[in-house]
């Protein structure tokens, strides 16, 4: 490892094209087929999951318990099999997607909005208020999410709203930190100064110039946060401090299914795969977005 690094400068690497995997990621005009498709499916299921679900996700039917998925010898009635109570896994997965989607959207929108507001306040005020806000953001970021969740659940009880609130508290400092430096970078650009020369006030500068120019960064942060929010919902529900059962959520399905890994593997694997694919797609999409938005907006 270190020897390879050391030998690199002495080899005539300067004129060589970058390694294929590097080039692949940077090739301009590449469309994010995989991540885009997965994100679209996730959004669709998140909005209409319970509508398209073939069965009632909470309907217990013990005579049909632990049926395997259709591709593992099950029946087409239950495409992804059933769980120990005979509930349809596909229907639970689809309604669970709504929970994940709601949590992700809530955390991303509210966390992003708070983060942007704080960033504008800090980036425009400077001085003491800026220092205080930055300190608060740093402190919130250092606070462990799970501990925070336990505290909030102990006070308010479990629920989707609580999960979203926990994630908002965890997420806003991430936005605030990155966006604050963006705000400072943008507000000192000459087109913002010029808007003042033309009589535009602070509100004008913020709404017309600063905020629109933070949007690429905001979008990239948001897509990355979608992945984090979905994982966090899964983890909190898995630990029993997230969405209260019997409501279907991917985290609850994982928690219920973990005891069946040996006997009914599809119970943990199906929600696990759905969660991993969605998070992977969100991150890849965020990466793509960052590259796609960069050249046109930064000069």
């Amino acid at each position, binding site marked *: 490892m270190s020897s390879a690094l050391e030998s690199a400068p002495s080899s005539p690497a300067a004129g060589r094209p970058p390694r294929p995997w590097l080039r692949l990621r940077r090739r301009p005009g590449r469309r994010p087929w995989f991540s885009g498709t997965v994100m679209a499916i996730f959004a669709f299921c998140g909005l209409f999951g319970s509508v398209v679900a073939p069965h009632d996700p909470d309907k217990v039917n013990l005579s049909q318990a632990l049926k395997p998925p259709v591709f593992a010898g099950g029946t087409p009635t239950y495409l992804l099999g059933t769980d120990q109570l005979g509930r349809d896994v596909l229907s639970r997965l689809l309604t669970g997607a709504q929970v994940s989607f709601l949590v992700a959207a809530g955390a991303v929108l509210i966390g992003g909005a708070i983060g942007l507001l704080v960033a504008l306040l800090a980036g425009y005020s400077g001085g003491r208020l800026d220092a205080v806000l930055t300190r608060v953001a740093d402190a919130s970021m250092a606070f462990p999410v799970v501990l925070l969740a336990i505290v909030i659940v102990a006070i308010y009880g479990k629920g989707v709203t609580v999960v979203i609130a926990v994630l908002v508290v965890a997420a806003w400092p991430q936005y605030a930190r990155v966006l604050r430096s963006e705000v400072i970078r943008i507000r000192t*650009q000459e087109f913002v100064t010029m808007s003042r*020369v*033309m*009589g*535009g006030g602070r509100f004008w500068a913020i709404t017309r110039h600063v905020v629109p*120019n933070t949007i690429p960064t905001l979008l990239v942060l948001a897509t990355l946060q979608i992945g984090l929010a979905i994982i966090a919902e899964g983890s909190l529900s898995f630990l029993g401090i997230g969405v209260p059962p019997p409501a279907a959520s991917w985290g609850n399905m994982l928690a219920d299914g973990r005891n069946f890994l040996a006997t009914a593997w599809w119970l943990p694997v199906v929600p696990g795969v759905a969660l991993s694919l969605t998070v992977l797609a969100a991150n890849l999409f965020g990466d793509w977005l960052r590259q796609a938005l960069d050249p*046109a907006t*930064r*000069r």
Partner: protein
Amino acid sequence: MSEYILEAVDVSKSFHGRRGETTQALTGVDFGVAAGEMVGLVGESGSGKTTLTRILLGIEQPTSGTVRFRGTPRDRFTAEHRRDYFNSVSAVFQNPYSSLNPRRRLWDIITERRSIERRAPKAERRARAIELLSLVSLPAEYADRFPHQLSGGQRQRVAIARGLCEDPDVIVLDEPMSALDVSVSAQIANLLLDLQEKFSIGYIFVAHDMHMVRHLCHRVAVLLKGQIVEQGAVADVLGNPRHEYTRRLVAASELRSLEPEEERVHP
């Protein structure tokens, strides 16, 4: 009462740094521009040229002294004065890569002043933008482009078009050519001259060498460490400099003009 449209009267400016140190950027500066006059402002980098223009444009407040517009001090502006000032005083900045909002179309950038002032209809603003584009020799179809589709020289033309939008009486040009290469900056200089002839606008033209000033200006002021050491007609000041510093600036610019291909690097 002087004949200046826009002037700084006995203006001083000091900046306070983080660690309590102060920078005296300007000391007792008297400087102004009359109608239709092209006045140069020269001095080495860090001499306070940009600070003086920012004070004239109202972006920075002077520590002491006043800025007068048509004889009225800035701090006694009524709403009427303010509107007149924003329509009559305009600017073109140094860096065409940061002076245009990358997320706006050119017609929208060029007529920004109109949408600040009042909700002007889009059709009217577009028509005005196309007029202005042709004034700066850019094709009308550029109205719907974004800044990143343009070269540096074209961007600077757009910035000039924006500066002209409300038929200003004064345009402050802070080193408008220093980010451009030699042939492009000559084209921009000619454009500025043409526009001046056409509309007889007052120019405050900032430069860190005297070459362009000799070519463009009627009058020139020389800044050294925040003070004006010499001010007068270009022929007098540059032809017969009285101050040692002016002599050095002239000599330096003559050296540079012998090597036109030399790459200009502005700090």
